[in-house]
Every structure is written in C-alpha cells, then in structure tokens.
C-alpha cells in the first residue's frame, strides 16, 4: 500500500504573529518553523503506525515550498517517511497548492492521501477536499481514527456533536485530527537515516490561483481586564448581566 502524506511548514505555535511590507507579508524573521502539527502528529504518525503494522506500506511525503522547507521535510523523513518530494514553488493560495499535490499524486498510484485537518497559519482546511476533487477521489474529513480492514479503510470521523464510523474503498483522501495517533519525536537512528533518504525537488505544474491576499490585520487589543474582588463574585454575575448583557 502506498500512502502520500501532505506536509506543510508553519510557524511554531508560540511564534509572535506580526506583519511587514505594509501588512502584506508575515514577519518571518527569528521565527521557528515546524511541521504543521496536524500534518505531523496525526497524518504522518498514523501513516508510520500503519507501516509498523504492515511493512509493505510505503510512505511518500510531499510539500510545496522553497528550499527553506527542506529542514521540515527532513524532520518528517526522520520520523519515518520513506521518501519525499518538494514542489519548488511558493504557495499562493490553497487551490494552487492543492493543484501541485494533485500533480504529484496523479500518477503515483497512491491508495491513501493523508493531510492534517488544517494548517495553523492559514487555517483553510481546504487542501484535502481540493486534492480529492482534482483526482476524483473520495474524501473523509476530520478523521479521529483510521484502520485498514480487508482492503477497505474504516474511518471514524467527527460530525456535529458526535462521531460517525464509515467504510471507504481506496483510493481515499483523509484529513486527520486529534485522536488519530500519539505524537512522537524522531530518534537518532531516524535522524541519521533521514540524511540518505531521497528528497526529490520537482518544478510546479501550471496552476491558477483563485484568490489573493490583499493584507493582514492584527485584532484590536482588548481594553484590559476588569478585575472583580474574590470576596464578591456576585459582582461578576451582575456585570455579565447588566454591562456585558450576555447572561
């Protein structure tokens, strides 16, 4: 079985969010970059767990980005990917990125394509669905559990206020979230092995962008907390009722 895991580079969860160039670019100076947590902890680690259960599983990684994404993809190889492809292009919008991933996947013969449920920078939650549509594959989103049973994928997905179990034929695109796998860290053997694993750089396929970011904005700062004495908590209830008018 061949699994394609989509990897995105994102700022660390604690990175300071600021913008430059008249608020049109993310201020990346001094920012620590990580594998998007949903791609790493859930999609990639689940693929690795499946490979540990069935050694015939092959894990291919794909990312869309410049050479500055290489350390991220090497880390993903160190965790347990077999080989990686980097599409050498700066992501413009989600449709452009999905088109690149679909381009890589089109003749790869993949049984499963796994993505994180969203990235923690753009939060579009769009790549999985777009890739599935471009390749005319089925798509199960927000999965919390994924197993193979007799050649079919059994997926537990989140629905509004609950969960649903469904069975899907391959090939299939799945977006992964918490519950899928336990986060792990690369060991020294993995890190050494990753150095010699293939990382192929390919040119982008022609693809359009359907949207463009005009500018970024930071939310207005809160006016400051109104502290209420611990001796009079009923005052909080009065304020929520009379001032904020929400209870």
């Amino acid at each position, binding site marked *: 079985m061949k699994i394609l895991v989509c990897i995105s580079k994102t700022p660390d*969860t*604690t990175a300071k*969010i600021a913008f430059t160039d008249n608020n049109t670019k993310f201020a990346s100076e001094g920012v620590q970059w990580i594998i998007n*947590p949903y791609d790493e902890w859930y999609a990639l680690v689940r693929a690795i767990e499946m490979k540990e259960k069935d050694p015939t599983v092959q894990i291919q990684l794909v990312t869309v980005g410049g050479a500055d994404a290489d350390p991220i993809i090497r880390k993903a190889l160190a965790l347990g990917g077999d080989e990686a492809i980097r599409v050498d292009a700066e992501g413009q*919008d*989600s*449709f452009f990125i*999905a088109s690149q991933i679909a381009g890589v996947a089109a003749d790869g013969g993949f049984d499963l394509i796994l993505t994180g449920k969203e990235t*923690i*920078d753009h*939060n*579009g939650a*769009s790549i999985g*669905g*777009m890739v*599935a*549509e*471009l390749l005319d594959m*089925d*798509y*199960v*989103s*927000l999965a919390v559990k994924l197993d193979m049973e007799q050649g079919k994928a*059994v997926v537990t997905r*989140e629905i*509004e206020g609950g*969960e*649903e*179990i*469904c*069975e*899907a034929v391959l090939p299939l695109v799945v977006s992964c979230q*918490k*519950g899928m796998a336990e986060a792990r860290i690369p060991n020294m053997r993995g890190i050494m092995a990753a150095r010699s694993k293939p990382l192929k750089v390919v040119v982008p396929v022609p693809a359009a*962008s*359907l*949207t*463009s*970011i*005009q500018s*970024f*904005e*930071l*939310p207005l700062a*809160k006016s400051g*907390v*109104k*502290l*209420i004495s*611990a001796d009079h*908590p*009923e005052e*909080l*209830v*009065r*304020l*929520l009722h009379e001032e*904020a008018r*929400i*209870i």
Partner: protein
Amino acid sequence: MSVLIFADQSEGHIRKSTYEALSYGAKVAELTGTVAEAIVLGPVLDSLSGLGKYGITKVHHVPDNGLEHMDARCYTAVIAEAVQQTGADTVIFSNNITGKAVAPRLSARLKAGLVAGAVSLPDLAGGFSVRRSVFSGKAYANVSIITPIRIITLNQNAYGIAESAGTAEVLNMTISSPASRLTFKSTSKVSGKVPLTEAEMVISGGRGLKGPEHWGLVEDLADLLGAATACSRAVADAHWRPHHEHVGQTGLAIAPNLYFAIGISGAIQHLAGVNRSKVIVVVNKDPEAPFFKAADYGIVGDAFEVMPKVIEAVRRLKAN
C-alpha cells in the same frame, strides 16, 4: 446572478449555524443587488418556507434519501449542478463540518475562489474582498476572490442571525447524485448537549480544578446558563474529560459569546482556540496567569471558594 446558501441540516432539522449563513447570504445579496436563495439536501422535517424569515426568496430542495449522510463527493456534485441551474455567482456555507468538507471540493470543481472562515461581509470597493481568520485566530487576512463564481464559508458565531417577516417559495429540485462509495456503519452523538462549536456560552475547566471529581463546578454553571462544557488540553490528556471537549490550538476552535475559564492559565495554544470569543471571563488563583491579559472580566481567587458563590448568584438571577 444570485447568492446560493447551503442550508445544512441534521436529522431533518436546519442547524443554527445555517441561520447565520442564511442571514449573511441575504445581506451579501442586498449588497450585490441580487437575490438570496437556499439549497437543502436530503429529507427535512422543518418548514422550508420559513427560511424566508432570514431573507431567502427561494428554497431549492433536493429531497433524496441518499443524501442523509454527508458524503463530500456527492454533495459537491449536487451543489455544483444546482449552481449551474440557478445561475448563482456566490455560494455560501457555514464553516462547520459539512462546509469544511464540501466547499473546498466545490471550489476545485467550479474553479471558484474560496474564502474559508470568513468573519466579515465582502468589501466590494474595487473587487470582492472578504476578511477571514488566520494564524489560529491571532490575525485576519483580507482576501480577494478573483474568479467569476465565489465561495465563502462563514465562521460560526461571526455574523448575527437577522429575522424579519417573509416566506420563501419552496421548489423541488431534481438532481441525481452519484452513488456514494462510502458505507456508514454507525453514528454516536453526545445526546442532549449543545455542540461546542455552536454553543453561545461555554464553561471550561483546567488543571486548577485538581481532578475530574470537581467538575460539578463547571457543569452546575453550564446547566444554569444552558452552556456547553469544555476543557484545556492538559485536562483532556489526563483523561479527566473526553477529548471532544478540548478547546485550543490542537483541539476545537470556538467563538462563543461567553467563554468562562476556570483554573486555566491561558497558554498561547489555548488562547488560539478561544480568542475569537466575544467576552472572556477568567477565574484563576494566580494573578500572573497569562489568560488575564486576554480576558474581559477576571477574578483572582481560589475557584473552590469563588465558583460556588458565582453559581449561587446566577441561580438567584435566573430565579428572578
């Protein structure tokens, strides 16, 4: 030209997040000088003509039984056909689970630009630009859609429901859906509780509550207010509470009118999931807890002393 709003339903009932999307879509139609129409898939129990109250002129209903379960591939095929039949140039979804699954597929199918997680009405000065939430709620991006057909998914609790008098014309639409290749085995719902992402008020507990046996403080207040309950990551990881209650960067992102955090320090990863809440209340005994910087109201004090008094005061308020 028209605005087509996908009216999401669950077990025959239109969802609350859909009313927000309908109200938003009606306003977009008004701004762009056109009409707002809705599309409903699968069997429904609610009166669809009633959607007129939210500014909808026509409801297109595709009543097929095969559409009861959400299969993104089938929903996309049907909605794409409906877009063509109605001539819609703007399609709106709630950014809920169905919207997140279907809107990207529809975008790729129609080559229609998608703004996912919109928090504002479109700005039509010099194009069609919509503000969306990015960096896990820590910033916004103004994104312009540069295609003839536009798709927007509206963040939950980002636009108020607007009701007025009105009746929509309900039309049955015949569109054959491709056969689903998914087999649905079972569905489990947490019954009787408000879904966290739809809740207007959320009461949440953290490690400061010291153990699952103290969750009565969270639940009593939630019951009195009709609020949903949530927790921090540490609490879910310690199995004090189920994972589906975890809000934060790697859990659910929510935007209720009231987020009431008890014994949660407010690490940046937690804030990422709740910083779009309208009013944040923090009860924590540590005055240095970072959450106070993001809060509107706060009490520095021991939750075990403070919360029973808060609950009592709410009970008195509700009794009056």
